[in-house]
């Protein structure tokens, strides 16, 4: 192994960010004590802990979910090791990667949270403004910087925006949470489901190539979802921060602070109409530009990266471990920098053990030239800047750590929010269902089919869309229904959603019992295989059916519904008691929920 030679590896210099503030640790510990002594009221305490990334656990006053902000999803080996240590000591011996690139520790005793914060602070991580009515983690495409189709690397801008707003007074008491998503290109992007979405762009102005962004405003998923709209053709770099500030200010001023269920910015935009909102933003931007002090700007730290791997790296390895080819196909993509590859680590619904966190830290040090990993919105982890010739060795290390599952970049990589495993709002165990689907798909080799590669499955445990079900090819959100006079866990299925700059929301299709979801997915895949045109992908076939242009036995969504509804029939509870029990449970399903924590 040593013969691979450390010396020919380039090490990219990355600036280490420190997002933490030591004084916030002791403050948190003190406030918890005051709360325990009943010197601080429930509501005041709740707002405080949410502002500091501490969310209540399902039905449990004494346990918390600690959400760690990971701006752009960038996390170092040292931080991974600390997370492993903290999850062993204070959580459940593992962590969870969220769809917004956060890392969450679940079931932490409230009185231990300050100790978790203390450990995080030592490695520069914070939970500040990870929950509550604030600007949440700034998401950035994990492909940024290495994507062949990007105009430029959005990462320094995403980090600068995160840095500008973190602890900024203008963001401490918004009507509701507020989300920034940065894309790398048209395809790898969640820009249209955020309050502010930014796609890097270059425009020719007076014969000069000028950098900027295409900025989308007012998107978001939830019980009522909206796709963000483009503010203007091109926002030059100097106007990026003023545009962000203007938008946040407008929301702060005009957003609804009364009706909890309608106070995200997308409702404000929707209610007044985008054209009016657009005018207001542009006008507000003029005011921001005229009144902001000269010191208010984005601190951009550009980092130099090589344009290709060192030339001496030419000999491909002959090592070909079992399963390697499949993993290579479903988990790796070449970077724009020749000779370098992105290697995705498939997690199950974003779950990772402390042992695996430590293993990734070690693997990252050995294989990634940038010396950090990124969490992804598909709840996986990606190693970038891996030498192509190192892949077989990397694969062997991943196998040893139990992290070499295939399917990360395919339909098998099912997204599932935490559901009833920890969330108050959840009705069903979306988390477990996502794992069951992934396991079944990998077992059946569904990840190896090229036609299924670009389709996605995303599951939420309730209509609130943390699982982003509305932008999935096949999306699901949990509910409860009376079937045969008994309550059963069910999902509303949506079809045809997509991400990217041309994102669209899925169409509500039909309601199906939780225990029938896998059968129905397999049936849809079978129908697709029978009826696809040459080279047609599953997502394309679904779109065609939704347009009513089916040419085989399925003509349109009604036709598909007839087939699906037949499978969705549940036998009586007497014949099949298991159908009335949710995944991961042993007893009959009940739909229990409590107050949500998404809004402070």
């Amino acid at each position, binding site marked *: 192994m040593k013969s691979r030679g450390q010396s020919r590896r380039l090490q990219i210099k990355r600036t280490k960010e420190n997002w933490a503030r030591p004084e916030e640790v002791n403050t948190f510990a003190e406030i918890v004590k005051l709360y325990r002594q009943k010197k601080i009221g429930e509501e005041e305490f709740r707002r405080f802990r949410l502002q500091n990334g501490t969310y209540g656990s399902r039905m449990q006053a004494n346990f918390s979910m600690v959400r760690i902000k990971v701006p752009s999803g960038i996390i170092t080996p040292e931080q991974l090791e600390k997370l492993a240590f903290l999850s062993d000591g204070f959580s459940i011996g593992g962590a969870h990667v969220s769809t917004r690139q956060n890392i969450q520790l679940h079931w932490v005793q409230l*009185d231990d949270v300050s*100790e978790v914060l203390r450990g995080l602070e030592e490695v520069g991580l914070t939970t500040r403004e990870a929950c509550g009515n604030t600007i949440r983690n700034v998401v950035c495409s994990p492909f940024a910087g290495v994507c062949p189709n990007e105009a430029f690397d959005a990462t320094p801008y995403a980090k600068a925006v995160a840095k500008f707003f973190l602890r900024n007074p203008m963001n401490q008491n918004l009507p509701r949470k507020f989300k920034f998503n940065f894309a790398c290109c048209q395809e790898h992007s969640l820009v249209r489901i955020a309050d502010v979405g930014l796609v890097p762009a270059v425009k020719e102005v007076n014969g000069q190539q000028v950098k900027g962004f295409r900025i989308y405003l007012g998107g978001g998923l939830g019980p009522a979802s909206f796709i963000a709209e483009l503010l203007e053709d091109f926002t030059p770099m100097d106007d990026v921060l003023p545009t962000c500030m203007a938008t946040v200010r407008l929301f702060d001023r005009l957003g609804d602070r009364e009706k909890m269920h309608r106070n995200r910015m997308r409702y404000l935009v929707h209610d007044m109409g985008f054209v009016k909102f657009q005018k207001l933003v542009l006008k507000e931007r003029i005011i921001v530009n005229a009144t902001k002090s000269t010191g208010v700007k984005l601190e951009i730290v550009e980092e130099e990266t090589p344009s290709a791997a060192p030339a001496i790296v030419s000999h491909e390895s002959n090592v070909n471990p079992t399963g390697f080819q499949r993993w290579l196909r479903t988990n790796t993509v070449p970077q724009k920098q020749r000779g370098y590859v992105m290697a995705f680590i498939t997690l*199950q619904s974003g779950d*990772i053990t402390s042992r695996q966190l430590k293993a990734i830290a070690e693997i990252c040090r050995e294989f990634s030239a940038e010396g950090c990993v990124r969490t992804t919105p598909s709840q996986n982890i990606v190693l970038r800047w891996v030498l192509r010739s190192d892949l077989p060795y990397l694969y062997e290390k991943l196998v040893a750590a139990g992290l070499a599952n295939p399917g990360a970049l395919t339909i098998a990589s099912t997204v599932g929010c935490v559901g009833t*495993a920890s969330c108050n709002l959840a009705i069903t165990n979306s988390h*477990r269902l996502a*794992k069951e689907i992934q396991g079944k798909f990998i077992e059946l080799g569904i990840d190896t089919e090229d036609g299924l590669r670009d389709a996605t499955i995303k599951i939420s445990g309730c209509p609130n869309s943390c699982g982003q079900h509305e932008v999935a090819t096949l999306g699901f959100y949990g509910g409860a229904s009376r079937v045969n006079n008994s309550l059963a866990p069910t999902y509303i299925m949506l079809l045809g959603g997509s991400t990217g700059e041309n994102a669209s929301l899925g169409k509500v299709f039909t309601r199906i019992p939780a225990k029938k979801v896998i059968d129905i997915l397999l049936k849809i895949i079978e129908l697709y295989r029978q009826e696809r045109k040459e080279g047609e992908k599953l997502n394309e076939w679904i779109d065609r059916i939704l347009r009513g242009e089916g040419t085989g036995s399925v003509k349109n969504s009604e036709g598909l519904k007839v087939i699906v509804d037949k499978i969705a029939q549940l036998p009586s509870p007497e014949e099949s008691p298991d159908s009335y029990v*949710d995944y991961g449970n042993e007893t009959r399903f009940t739909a229990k929920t409590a107050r949500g924590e998404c809004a402070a």
Partner: protein
Amino acid sequence: MRSLRSSEYHPGSRKYPILIEPYDLMKAIAKKKVRVVDVRKTEEYREGHLPTAVSIPLANVLNAEGLEKVVEVFENAGIDDDIHVVVYDDTFGALAARVAWTLEYIGHQNVSLLSVMYSTWKFMGLKTEKRNVVYKKAKHSLNVNKDILATVDYVNSSVGQDGKVLVDSRERLNYLDHHIPKAINIPWKTFSGENKILRSPGELKRLVQNRGISNTQEVITYCGSVGTLSGLAYYALQLAGYRNVKLYAKSLKEWKSLGLPTEIVHDANYWDLSAG
């Protein structure tokens, strides 16, 4: 690795510190002032052990029937009433803690835990040896230290009593799944240091105080089966300055075998959050 002077800890009436640092132990070994006890399995001991260490696998202590037999196990390793005993393992200090506690229970007053595991000792490049070390049989008296043991009846009568705290030392998921009624959960790893079997006394004190346990309270620790993880918690609490600590040595295994009630945390599928 931060080196802690052994002189930092002399809580209570202890003649020797609860934790002894590797370099201090090296010195004590050189001066022949200490009996080092290796509680790993015999096979592991044969592969290499600390200089002068004698092998007393945990199982030999647990399987000895009756306290006289337990005393004999230690006597056979050349341990008399006065010698300073230092115990170590390679299992996070939990096995060592259980053996150290047993020594204290039979009335031995001079016992310490090595602050690191055997693998860390080796990693630090410190000396090891392979020879089978044998000592002349010694004489040890039996003065049972009843105060540090909690029997099942004692635990049962303590449930929900003011001034008493029952601490479940198992991992969080096990606790959520079931635990002795009213017990609080401090997983044993909460007390583990990043390179040491236990955190510093200051950190331990802060952790326990954060959980609202005052040192005027009596604390009973238990775990899943034979009191190893909770044995480590026993010493963590001692190190944090808590004097009134008892070990429920037979732990949940006995509790459940007697059909005594347990509590569970309802309304969540927490096991589904565990990976791989």
